[in-house]
């Protein structure tokens, strides 16, 4: 069965303190891996799609990378406005879509 595991569950950083979030997955044929940001009381907001091992995408202070077993979301010099829950999802070749439980990031000023 397809599985997505995100770690850590929660992460507290000081403003400017860079770190990485992990998304480990097992899937029968990866069609795509997605990162979303979710603020309290809102729906997930799309950040990145990665399709193959070695691929990298960047947006402002965020950079997503992909290997055959996991993806990392690197946050460089985070700001308080980066505080949110970051969700990882995988889509299999059979179109099965599965989300992880998310990492709740808090950035203190």
């Amino acid at each position, binding site marked *: 069965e397809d599985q997505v595991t995100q770690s850590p569950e929660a992460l507290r950083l000081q403003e400017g303190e860079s770190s990485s979030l992990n998304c480990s997955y097992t899937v029968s044929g990866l069609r795509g891996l*997605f990162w979303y940001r979710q603020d309290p009381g809102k729906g997930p907001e*799309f950040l990145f799609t990665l399709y193959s091992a070695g691929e990298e995408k960047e947006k402002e202070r965020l950079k997503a990378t992909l290997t055959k077993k996991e993806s990392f979301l690197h946050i460089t010099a985070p700001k308080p406005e980066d505080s949110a829950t970051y*969700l990882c999802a995988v889509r299999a070749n059979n179109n099965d879509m599965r*989300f992880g*439980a998310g990492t709740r990031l808090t950035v203190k000023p």
Partner: protein
Amino acid sequence: EAGVVQSPRYKIIEKKQPVAFWCNPISGHNTLYWYLQNLGQGPELLIRYENEEAVDDSQLPKDRFSAERLKGVDSTLKIQPAELGDSAVYLCASSPQGTDTQYFGPGTRLTVL
């Protein structure tokens, strides 16, 4: 461009009552998804539509849940009767044809008392 619209935003009902949620996807998006999200968890797919056709409803509890997408645009998700365990946020998302990127609405928070 307007995003995915959902209503109501909040709903409180007593158990055994029926409830319905409405979703208007982004204009031109032919794929529509309904998800359930429990507190502290990621969204779980309930049903996926391609235009009017429900192409994946394997996770929809069909004894009490039903959905429709007439004319391939708006969609309604219904629960009848609601149970205490149905309390959650119900999210709607849509995608343009040929892409996997999903755009989510704000969700409907359901509380069953």
